[in-house]
């Protein structure tokens, strides 16, 4: 496949962020996908053992199995497992193209990111990262941002060419990251320095690093871009930072060892969903009042969530 054609497939369909979709949470110990809808756990599906992270794109869900040498592909409408993609490495973070044809994976112990065909698992290209690459995100212009946990940096990779175009120093042990809706800013949680780094995605430079909370393990941004939400694993809280001032606007109690966080819904219906790894439930936060409004039990060890857009495109 020529790269212009590939780029077209990859990025032409990279539409609006999936806000009004279905929230899925992956439980590591329980090996299940649970679907959260209208404030309840609506559905659950068994998946292969120990999924660490989940990503959504094009009506599909992708699950990483770091100890299982595999990526699971499931149907976003039902959670039903479609196929297993063998992976020659220790896969951790995943990001899917909007059309679901391509999934990008970090290899934690291989210190690289791979571009993988979702149909058959073929590795189409690879790029080196820093040490222990954790989560990654794909922007609408086709750039990957990878949190290089043990290199204290974010690697920026041109996803079409699979070439690293920049490295941006951040805090100690960056793990999770999130783009704001305009994709002008990237927020990075630094686990060991208890801070959040703000990156200007045009200049590809860090513009601020501010206190977040004890062990930030997950980051999300409200649909209007005004709030940055950070899970603090060491404190059992979510901090909501004001995006303009970067001051902490609220600290919200959630379950034990919160990790992944996503935002779904818009306006007054916008909610954040937090995977509480130790307490085996999901906290739901109202983004207007900045209060936790529900705790939903799920299978053991929920770590990661994804929002699947409606209709599957």
């Amino acid at each position, binding site marked *: 496949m020529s790269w212009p054609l590939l780029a077209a497939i990859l990025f032409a369909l990279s539409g609006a962020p999936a806000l009004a979709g279905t929230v899925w949470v992956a439980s590591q110990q329980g090996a299940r996908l649970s679907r959260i809808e209208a404030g309840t756990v609506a559905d659950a599906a068994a998946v292969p053992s120990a999924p660490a992270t989940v990503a959504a794109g094009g009506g599909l869900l992708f699950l990483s199995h770091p100890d299982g040498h595999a990526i699971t592909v499931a149907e976003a409408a039902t959670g039903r497992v479609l196929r297993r993609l063998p992976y020659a490495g220790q896969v951790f973070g995943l990001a899917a193209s909007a059309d679901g044809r391509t999934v990008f994976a970090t290899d934690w112990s291989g210190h690289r990111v791979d571009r993988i065909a979702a149909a058959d698992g073929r590795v189409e290209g690879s790029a080196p990262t820093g040490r222990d690459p954790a989560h990654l995100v794909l922007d609408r212009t086709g750039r990957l941002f990878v949190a290089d946990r043990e290199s204290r940096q974010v690697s920026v990779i041109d996803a079409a060419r*699979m070439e690293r175009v920049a490295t941006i120093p951040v805090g100690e042990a960056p793990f999770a990251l999130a783009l704001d809706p305009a994709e002008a800013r990237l927020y990075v949680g630094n686990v060991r320095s208890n801070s959040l780094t703000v990156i200007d995605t045009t200049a590809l430079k860090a513009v601020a690093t501010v206190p977040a909370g004890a062990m930030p393990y997950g980051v999300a941004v409200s649909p209007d871009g005004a709030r940055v939400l950070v899970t603090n694993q060491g404190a059992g809280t979510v901090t909501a930072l004001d995006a303009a001032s970067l001051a902490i606007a609220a600290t919200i109690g959630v379950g034990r060892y919160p990790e992944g966080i996503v935002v779904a819904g818009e306006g007054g219906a916008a909610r954040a969903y937090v995977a509480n790894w130790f307490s085996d439930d999901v906290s739901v936060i109202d983004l207007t009042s900045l209060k936790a409004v529900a705790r939903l039990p799920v299978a053991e060890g929920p770590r990661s969530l994804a929002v699947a857009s409606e209709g599957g495109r």
Partner: protein
Amino acid sequence: MRLSLLALPLALAATAALAHGPTPQKVSQSITIKASPDAVWKVAGDFAGIGQWHPDIAKAEGKGGNGEGGSRTLTLKNGGTLTEGLDEWKADARSYSYRMSGEPDLKALPVSSYSATFTVSPEGDGAKVEWMGRFYRGDTGNEPPDNLSDDAGREAMNRFFSDGLKGLKAAAEGGKRTQ
């Protein structure tokens, strides 16, 4: 244009026990103690005072007190050393959270990193102490040897917590410190 997987050195597949891996495991122990939560917290709340009740610890030295940034260095009776840093210390909730802050010492515990929370709460006429945490096995690569596996880490962490809680119970109920 494409970089073949074959071009990547195979050596990259192996990982030394470094700092962190991708699959954390749970550890959790609890015990009930016939003493008031305040009395138990008085014994157990001092972060660097763990050496006075944990039977597996030969020596505990603290720096920075009980607050964010405080740390303790534990010398275990098995010869290993652990350095831990406080993330939160909340007297009103009788709870503190900390993490391994130094290099892993596989002789002390066969794990590459961990964080944990210690909480004293009321239960009936007495107290319940919960000690729970999240750890990563000693070899975070895909094919860990048995002695650095998830199971080995779980067994060692649970034993360390359980031994500590038994020692704390003896110290708090006996009215005197055992170590």
